[in-house]
């Protein structure tokens, strides 16, 4: 009862309040109250997430499972970032409140968290994303084969977009004697993206929206309880 019925009731009431507030403007203050509670609960979820991360990685270190060194690194990085962020270490006071030592923004210039972000997080994050260029080029060679009609359509479209999105499109077709509508850039900008792509995307988005409505209704009336996890 306590484990499942009450959470289902909370979810249903919160959801219904938001739906009602959308159609009945005087009920907007209720929706604001629910939204505030959501934000408080989300903040608590951050604490739970952090605790869970600690538990899992400490367990891994304690059992000396393969890769436990990475877990140790994760815990050290997490703890350091958390402490320097919470205590605003190195952050200068806000110009508006110079006498208050903790009044500066947590990512204020010169702070340790700002340093970690600028010199560790940013290069690592950007490097991981930049590696995609290498994997995409390898995949383009290995997987992009005209094995059937669908693959051929995809291949031709991808090539046109790849060329049209750079100066190559202008170099290849950007001449006065070629009809402007047949130039690669125009084919991408006037046909592929706004006609074929946009119509497909709209259909997908409408489909997703209908799916969300149906799933939300199931959650509101309590027939879908999958978000509560397993019975055990």
């Amino acid at each position, binding site marked *: 009862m306590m484990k499942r019925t009450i959470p289902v009731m909370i979810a249903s009431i919160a959801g219904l309040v938001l739906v009602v507030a959308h159609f009945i403007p005087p009920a907007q203050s209720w929706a604001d109250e629910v939204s505030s509670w959501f934000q408080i609960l989300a903040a608590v979820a951050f604490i739970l997430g952090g605790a869970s991360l600690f538990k899992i990685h400490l367990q891994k270190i304690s059992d000396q499972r393969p890769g436990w060194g990475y877990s140790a690194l994760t815990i050290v990085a997490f703890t350091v970032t958390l402490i320097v962020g919470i205590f605003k270490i190195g952050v200068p006071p806000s*110009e508006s409140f110079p006498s208050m030592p903790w009044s500066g923004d947590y990512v204020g210039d010169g702070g340790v968290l700002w340093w970690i972000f600028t010199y560790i997080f940013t290069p690592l994050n950007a490097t991981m994303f930049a590696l995609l260029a290498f994997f995409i080029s*390898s995949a383009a060679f290995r997987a992009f084969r005209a094995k059937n009609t669908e693959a051929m359509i995809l291949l031709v479209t991808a090539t046109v977009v790849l060329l049209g999105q750079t100066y190559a499109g202008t170099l290849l077709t950007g001449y006065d004697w070629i009809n402007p509508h047949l130039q690669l850039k125009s084919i991408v900008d006037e046909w592929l993206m706004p006609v074929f792509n946009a119509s497909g995307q709209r259909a997908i988005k409408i489909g997703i929206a209908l799916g969300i409505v149906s799933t939300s209704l199931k959650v509101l009336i309590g027939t879908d309880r999958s978000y509560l996890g397993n019975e055990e």
Partner: protein
Amino acid sequence: MQFLTNGQLDRRWIFLGMLLAIASPILLQVTFPEKPSPKTIDVFNAIDQLSESSRVVIACDFDPASAGELEPMISAIVRHCALKRHRMIFLTLWLPGAPVIKSNIRMLVDEFPDYRSGIDYVDLGYQPGAEVVLKVLTSNFKKQCSSDTSGRNTADLPITAPLTTIQQVDLIVSVSTGFPGTTEWVQYVGSPHKVKMVGGTTAVSAPSLYAYIPRQLISVLGGIKGAAEYERKIMDHYPQLEANQSAREGIRRMGPQFMGHMLVVTLIVLGNILFFVEKRKGTDR
């Protein structure tokens, strides 16, 4: 290291090719002329046609992984807004977006020293809560953003004092990649409350936003190409930017993109030639 083995190219050659393709235009500083597309012109007009001192929300919903594509875009938009003397309200729904705002404000203050915090711009920083933040902003702006990142009460700042809801701003510029981002801004603010919006996103995400043009979004800048075209467009209108090297960061990055794309197209063609040669050999046998 053999170049070709059983119709397969050793991937180390491919990686080396990509390294050279990306590095050579950077080292040789190769750039290409850009011609703004209709979508870029629409974004430009949306900002340019606002009257002076209009309030523009600039949402920086991305992290450093996408900054390579999106930072030149947001910098160009901030420059354009400053040239038009618009008032800018910065905020982000992404935690790593907060330092992105800071770096743009640094650029703004360096290039436009007369811009004053709290009057001409405000940094509202990271707003945790994704869509819920947007819902609250539409019903009670100051409940969600009670203070800026300096700890000043938004009710006391001239730029935010008159705002009771976010619908009162003149334009929302959402530069994002992923969730929460431009899609959520459209669904919770732009579309239901009829607020004018333009978007900016990475090249891979742009096709999903084109579906919202022109009713929910005025237009969208897609990837570094969109940023480069936008830089060209504002330089054409404000020639004083021509001398500013950091105002052509997107144009500079189109060189590596051009070479990278050419390599990928070459690899696709090469892969298919080898595929058909192997297929023919199999048929002949």
